[in-house]
């Protein structure tokens, strides 16, 4: 590829990313972006390289630093300039081109993955017209080329309202099994041990990795691991809460509620072991995690220290901890 063609692709990619980031992109533009990615694998891979890198940085914990702190660090003056001033010529000889091999996380992130960040639910229209909602910290790979209707859920949770009137069902794949439907509203979630499919309307067909096939009706849910385990139950009534940015707990340890909050909050939340054992019940906001933490403080009599918004410490008050 010529240098200018390469640069043009990166230029377009930069403009797309900045437009989508602005929050002012229309649904039409979001769709056009997906089409742009589908048009040329180099388009998709440029985006993929960027998203992979950002996820890596977030995973390493940069998301837990206050951005101001990160900024101050990055703006550190460079002693390289001082070196060039003071010592030009010591090592310096004629410049030669340097080719650096750079390792890209190409095996980790597939082409044109759709990703949601911490505390971000993303709503998207898929190329076939289906409406997709990604829960926080989720990742999918769409495949709508050659008449395919296929999503792979890599991480997290999604809800999809399948566009009706097609011959071919929409297929959602996970390592534990595949669910397909012509017209339903579905939720699929990957947890560490189990994968969960909930059918909210119409019906869907589940095929687990170990070959079990099962028709699910509206109001039913299946919990499975693809290795023999498969359980069908009524879908829990609070399944729609995350869609609205809410979370319900009933008599659960505080620690597990805080774990759930982490996907919705940038920063470190530390909970003392004693506080983590407290039982909690209630409906809490996922979108306003600060409010949730303050509500917990007030209802449970906890000590909640905010040290900047990025470092939160939760413990029992001194007196209570001793008794």
């Amino acid at each position, binding site marked *: 590829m010529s240098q200018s063609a390469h640069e043009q692709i990166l230029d377009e990619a930069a403009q797309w990313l900045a437009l989508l980031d602005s929050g002012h992109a229309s649904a039409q533009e979001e769709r056009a972006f997906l089409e742009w990615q589908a048009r040329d694998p180099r388009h998709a891979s440029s985006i993929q390289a960027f998203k992979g890198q950002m996820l890596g940085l977030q995973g390493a914990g940069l998301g837990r630093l206050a951005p101001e702190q990160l900024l101050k660090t990055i703006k550190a003056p460079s002693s390289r300039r001082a070196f060039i001033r003071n010592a030009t010529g010591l*090592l310096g000889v004629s410049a030669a081109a340097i080719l650096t*091999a750079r390792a890209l996380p190409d095996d980790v992130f597939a082409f044109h993955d759709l990703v949601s960040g911490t505390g971000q639910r993303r709503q998207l229209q898929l190329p076939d017209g289906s409406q997709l909602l990604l829960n926080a910290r989720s990742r999918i790979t769409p495949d709508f080329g050659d008449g395919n209707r296929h999503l792979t859920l890599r991480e997290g949770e999604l809800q999809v309202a399948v566009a009706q009137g097609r011959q071919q069902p929409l297929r959602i794949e996970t390592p534990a099994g595949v669910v397909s439907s012509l017209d339903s509203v579905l939720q699929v979630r990957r947890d560490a041990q189990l994968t969960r499919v909930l059918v909210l309307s119409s019906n869907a067909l589940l095929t687990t990795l170990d070959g079990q096939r099962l028709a699910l009706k509206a109001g039913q849910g299946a919990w499975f691991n693809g290795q023999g385990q498969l359980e069908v139950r009524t879908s829990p009534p609070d399944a729609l809460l995350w869609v609205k940015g809410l979370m319900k707990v009933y008599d659960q340890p505080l620690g597990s509620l805080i774990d759930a909050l982490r996907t919705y909050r940038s920063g470190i939340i530390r909970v003392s072991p004693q506080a983590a054992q407290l039982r909690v019940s209630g409906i809490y906001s996922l979108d306003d995690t600060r409010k949730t933490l303050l509500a917990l403080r007030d209802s449970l009599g906890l000590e909640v220290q905010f040290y900047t918004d990025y470092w939160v410490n939760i413990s029992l008050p001194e007196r209570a901890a001793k008794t």
Partner: protein
Amino acid sequence: MINPTGFNRQFVSQLFVTNYSWLCSRVRAKVGCAASAEDIAAETFVRVLTMRDPGSVREPRAFLSTIARHLIYDVWRQRDLENAYLKSLADLPEQFQPSPEEHLIMIEAVVSLDKMLDGLPGRGKAAFILRQFGNLTYEQIGEQLGISAPRVHQYITQAYRYSLKMLNPL
């Protein structure tokens, strides 16, 4: 990743035999520490090994020096970043200090972010970081930096261009 052809391997080992001690002493004169000098010299040869066509190098010593110099810059930049990061932590109470593991991973990530944004003006870096890590809108970023939202959009586009270029070498 390192998969040199027979010819290149032979060429590089020849290069190594002829120039390794020379390069070590050269680097040591600059960094003042024998151990890190050897590390940098060794890394220099690894870079040569991963090149597409090391056989095309005409002035090996000039070439090796250039690579080594860039590696020294990298080491120094990393030290600058680490110092700045530690300084920013110094004000935090002890219970908020990251663990040593968190710390190492963090430094590494800061270094690669720094590389990604290398060359951008300060405001471009600021806009990008506030967007990516602070989740602020362009409007909020504009307020914080004292510029208009469309200007923020321009800075962010530029930041994307830099980082995409860095992540997608031709």
